[in-house]
């Protein structure tokens, strides 16, 4: 087959750079995700079966079943899974993403983000906060109660506030936050604050109950990672229009289910190329160490896929110590390395610390295999046992085997 790879990749970069992610609404999974029913659970990463799932993913699934009222306790929930009644679906296949275990169920509210340039939509859950939360595999009553509050109180308030405020331009917030020291994977404090400035003046107009208003404003302003899920949905809507360009070697998705790391490549459609996940290196919360941590997990690598997160570590000196990087110059070196494996630079997401150069954009599988430089990811770390939660944060790479497999498949498809 005659294809012009370099032209195809230029088109991919152009589509990424011209994307316009915008928060337009809050919707419920049951209303917008294809095939979603009470017994369907969306999870992070490529598809996998219960028997192959890691501890935190199993813990989160047990919690998600209880959250939907399908079981009263962990034993009942596990029995339901073993009976085969629960259907597991990769979030990406439903047009959605979720951080860490990535739980998305029937009743959950989702940010609805639209790429105004191409007209496509993407969805992500609302961030639960840090510590003992479902995305890290925790599943006790405190976790379920918080999720119910998100569904019944926070989401309706945000929806009404958005109706008043109108759509919120997320591209502008991401660009501003990069200039304020966020990389938008493990540091979202600037982006979360900018978002709060946009939405809170309208939240105070739509929530009449003073106690509830205080709870909502405290929740949004008290969570430095609140914006992460909006950055992820922005990544999803930015990368989806890049799929299916004939002869294109640019990565359109990177994601992990806690067992395997998967990538998708534009010219190879919806096929996942998978390899076992690696263990992040980083810092642990007091009382925990590497022996407690589960390997890499989550859809949040969609942020690196469109060029921020670990790829813009050089813009975020303050995240360096949190993820265990050795120095600010090492963080800048990570970003410089990512320029070696990408098609180009972002025209909007620029880094003042690197002379306003653009974020490394459009991972080219050819460059990854040729240089041996692997995409770098800033990530949270979950406890390996079900039900515990977050134990630290660190840096991890995508495994080379995914890129080698994709390159072989690409060669086979286009050159026989």
């Amino acid at each position: 087959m005659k294809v012009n790879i370099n032209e195809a990749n230029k088109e991919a970069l152009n589509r990424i750079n011209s994307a316009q992610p915008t928060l337009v609404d809050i919707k419920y999974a049951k209303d917008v995700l294809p095939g979603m029913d009470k017994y369907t659970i969306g999870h992070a990463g490529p598809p996998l079966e219960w028997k192959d799932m890691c501890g935190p993913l199993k813990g989160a699934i047990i919690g998600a079943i209880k959250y939907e009222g399908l079981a009263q306790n962990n034993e009942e929930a596990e029995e339901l899974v073993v009976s085969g009644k629960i259907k597991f679906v990769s979030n990406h296949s439903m047009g959605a993403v979720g951080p860490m275990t990535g739980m998305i169920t029937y009743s959950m509210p989702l940010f609805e983000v639209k790429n105004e340039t191409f007209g496509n939509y993407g969805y992500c859950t609302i961030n639960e906060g840090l510590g003992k939360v479902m995305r890290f595999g925790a599943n006790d009553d405190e976790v379920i109660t918080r999720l119910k509050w998100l569904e019944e109180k926070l989401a309706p308030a945000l929806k009404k506030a958005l109706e008043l405020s109108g759509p919120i331009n997320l591209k502008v917030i991401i660009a501003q936050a990069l200039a304020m020291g966020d990389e938008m994977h493990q540091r979202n404090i600037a982006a979360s604050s900018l978002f709060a400035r946009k939405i809170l003046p309208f939240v105070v107009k739509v929530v009449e109950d003073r106690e509830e208003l205080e709870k909502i404003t405290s929740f949004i302003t008290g969570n430095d990672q609140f914006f992460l899920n909006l950055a992820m949905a922005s990544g999803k809507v930015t990368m989806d229009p890049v799929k299916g360009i004939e002869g294109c070697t640019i990565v359109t998705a990177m994601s992990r289910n806690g067992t395997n790391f998967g990538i998708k490549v534009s010219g190879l459609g919806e096929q996942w190329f998978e390899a076992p996940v690696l263990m992040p290196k980083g810092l642990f919360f007091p009382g925990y160490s590497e022996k407690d941590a589960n390997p890499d997990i989550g859809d949040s690598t969609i942020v690196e896929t469109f060029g921020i997160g670990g790829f813009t570590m050089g813009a975020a000196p303050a995240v360096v110590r949190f993820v265990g990087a050795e120095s600010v110059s090492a963080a800048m070196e990570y970003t410089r390395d990512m320029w070696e494996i990408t098609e180009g630079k972002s025209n909007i997401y620029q880094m003042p610390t690197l002379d306003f150069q653009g974020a490394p954009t459009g991972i080219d599988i050819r460059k990854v295999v040729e240089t041996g430089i692997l995409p770098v990811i800033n990530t949270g770390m979950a406890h390996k046992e079900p039900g515990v939660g977050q134990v630290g944060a660190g840096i991890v790479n995508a495994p080379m085997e995914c890129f080698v497999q994709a390159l072989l498949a690409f060669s086979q498809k286009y050159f026989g």
Partner: protein
Amino acid sequence: MNKPVELFKKELKVVNIGLQTFYDSLKSQGASAAHVEWKPPAGGNEELLAILQKLK
């Protein structure tokens, strides 16, 4: 003239390519050295190199 012998009579200025431990060793002995990060393309895998050549 024996060039290698002449070379080692002067102050060494070394450009190290590839393995960082050689560079670290020189620096620890006080030698003037610069390090260039380099790896064989595709880790030296000939099958992958042939594919990459096709996909230029």
